[in-house]
């Protein structure tokens, strides 16, 4: 039986509302396709993590304080994490995880946290702590050649510089910066985004895209049998109607 190996980094620190739910959704949908999942953890002080042995590396969002606490540990793993990315491990990065993999993050206290520099973007938070991008967000992204609406909730002070590889185009909400058109960062084996919700809870197509990538990266083929997503479809419908029709 096919197994997806997931590394959940800093799950004890980057655990803002519900982000751990992304792992639950992946396991739930993988299991329904006969794909097993193994979730292992890396936190501050974990020794000898073999990053390249995982199919998926996941980082959620955290508060400024926690992001500072873990920055040093993250730097110490830089080479191994780079290697995993080059070997095709998929990276799913939410909010803080997104920011930390860029060049740097300047937080709301004007403190610079060095990023891993895995991807060519950087983030600067407004010094006014009250000034944040907060609210429901809908973007349009292309997954496997299909245009799909992705829905989530954003809550970030950080303003991330434009990249030519945005995850999606903003239909409702702010995105990478206040009232920007682009959201997130997307490449062959990385999706980095500000979307909480948790992200995968109302975007089953996106969850399946990641499961398919992770289970086929060694050359195999996996049959993504359709699931009963009636609840998810209804939840999306309610929010599309509420948020998109008033424009």
């Amino acid at each position: 039986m096919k197994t997806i190996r997931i590394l959940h980094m800093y799950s004890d620190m980057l655990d803002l509302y519900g982000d751990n739910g992304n792992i639950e959704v992946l396991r739930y949908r993988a299991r329904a396709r006969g794909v097993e999942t193994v979730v292992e953890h890396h936190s501050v002080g974990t020794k000898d993590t073999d990053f390249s042995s995982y199919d998926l590396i996941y980082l959620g969002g955290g508060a400024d304080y926690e992001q500072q606490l873990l920055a040093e540990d993250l730097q110490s793993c830089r080479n191994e994490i780079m290697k995993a990315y080059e070997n095709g491990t998929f990276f799913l990065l939410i909010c803080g995880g997104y920011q930390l993999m860029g060049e740097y993050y300047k937080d709301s206290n004007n403190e610079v946290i060095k990023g891993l520099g895995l991807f060519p973007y950087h983030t600067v938070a407004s010094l006014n702590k009250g000034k944040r991008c907060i609210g429901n967000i809908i973007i349009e992204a292309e997954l496997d050649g299909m245009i799909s609406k992705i829905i989530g909730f954003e809550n970030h002070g950080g303003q991330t510089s434009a990249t030519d590889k945005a995850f999606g185009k903003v239909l409702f909400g702010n995105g990478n910066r206040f009232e920007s058109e682009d959201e997130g960062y997307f490449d062959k084996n990385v999706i980095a985004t500000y979307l909480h919700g948790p992200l995968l809870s109302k975007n089953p197509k996106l969850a399946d895209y990641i499961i398919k990538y992770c289970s086929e990266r060694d050359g195999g083929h996996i049959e993504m049998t359709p699931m009963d997503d009636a609840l998810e479809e209804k939840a999306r419908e309610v929010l599309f109607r509420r948020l998109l029709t008033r424009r």
Partner: protein
Amino acid sequence: MGLYNFLTLQLGKLIVKVLKLLHKGAGNLPGLILLGINKNILGYFKVDCPIIAVTGTNGKTSVTNFVNHIFEQSGKNVITNKLGNNLDTGIVSLFLKLCSPTGKIHADYLVLEIDESHVPVIFKKLKLETLVVLNFFRDQLDRNGEVETLILKVKSFLETFEGNVILNGDDPNVSRLGQANPDNKNIKYFSVEKYKYATDKIHEVGEGKFCPMCGNPLEYEYYQYSHIGRFKCSRCDFGNNDVFLRVENVDLENRRFTVEGREYNINNRSIYYVYNMAAVCAVAKLYNIDDEILRDTLDTYEVNNGRMERFSIGNSNAVINLAKNPVGANMTIRVMNETNCEKELMFVLNDNLADGYDVSWIWDINFEIFKDVQRVITSGRRAYDIAIRIKVSGYDPSMIEVYPDLDEAVEHLFSTEGEKFIIANYTSVQPTRTAVINYINNNKEQ
């Protein structure tokens, strides 16, 4: 009082009267209007009695009602915001209703529930005697920001405060406030002795992983619920408090505990409730409330109002409990699991402004521990979101029914007989009560 302030006050009193004539409850509206025209208005009320304020994430309304009750039973004339209008706008509205034409508020005590973020704003203008801080959990992150931001707001107020501070010594987020003003000699911690279902590992999402004083990992001897428990920092000795009031021998099955050797019966079976009662006992001790009054209050007084409120119809019993955050919902699920019989759950989830638009907190609720739940009904503006969450936790989706309309949901809930638990979030709890009460009134046996 200047003429301008005097005139704003008269205008405010007029608004309250007009609203009353229109049969509208005052709520926050008069305060909202008045603060809009004169943001200093709070400072012009003249309060001639001590103020006791209750703040914290969960339990404010209950504790405020209990404290109000013990003072009233002691024959005192108390003014309180029972219904939880706990922002500056709510307090101004309350004062407008009760003050003399020159802004005097006359009572023996003011007992106020205050939102955490409004503690500094309100008590910069009003003289506080005692602040009670219950707990800090993640709550409505999109409205409040990180929990740390809220703690720092209360801390900044306490740095220059010299009055009484009653703190939950078992919550590191609260306990740290005891060091905000090293010169304040009036810091009183309350604590609850380890109870039967306390755990070695944290059972539900919580904060408190690191020492707020030095950043070292905190060590826990046990967890009562969420991050509430016996903790200490081995580096800086944080957590080693002198306890002012300790609740001991907690016996949830028989609903009782002891304080300083005296036994008290309580009205509810959750550890979360015991902590609220510990805060009430601490206030009673500080103000020398007669022990018989305290005993009688703990034994018989109920807040109801959607806080573990019981209803019954025919052979069915229902308990409605408010949950604005994962800790609140997890507590109801604990109580459900400790009830050894088959049961059904209804979850009502809204995402109005006062709830926070972000509903992702439902993913921090521990539904995996569900026991003997025969059916789940979901309702509210985000009925589908909560249904998805429960489904992904492993619960059989064919046993989940979604009815966004509340009356329809309640009707289906009572289409079977038995034990029902209802969890409703902030703006849904009153409509849910109303729907249940209407259903019961319309379906009483003739």
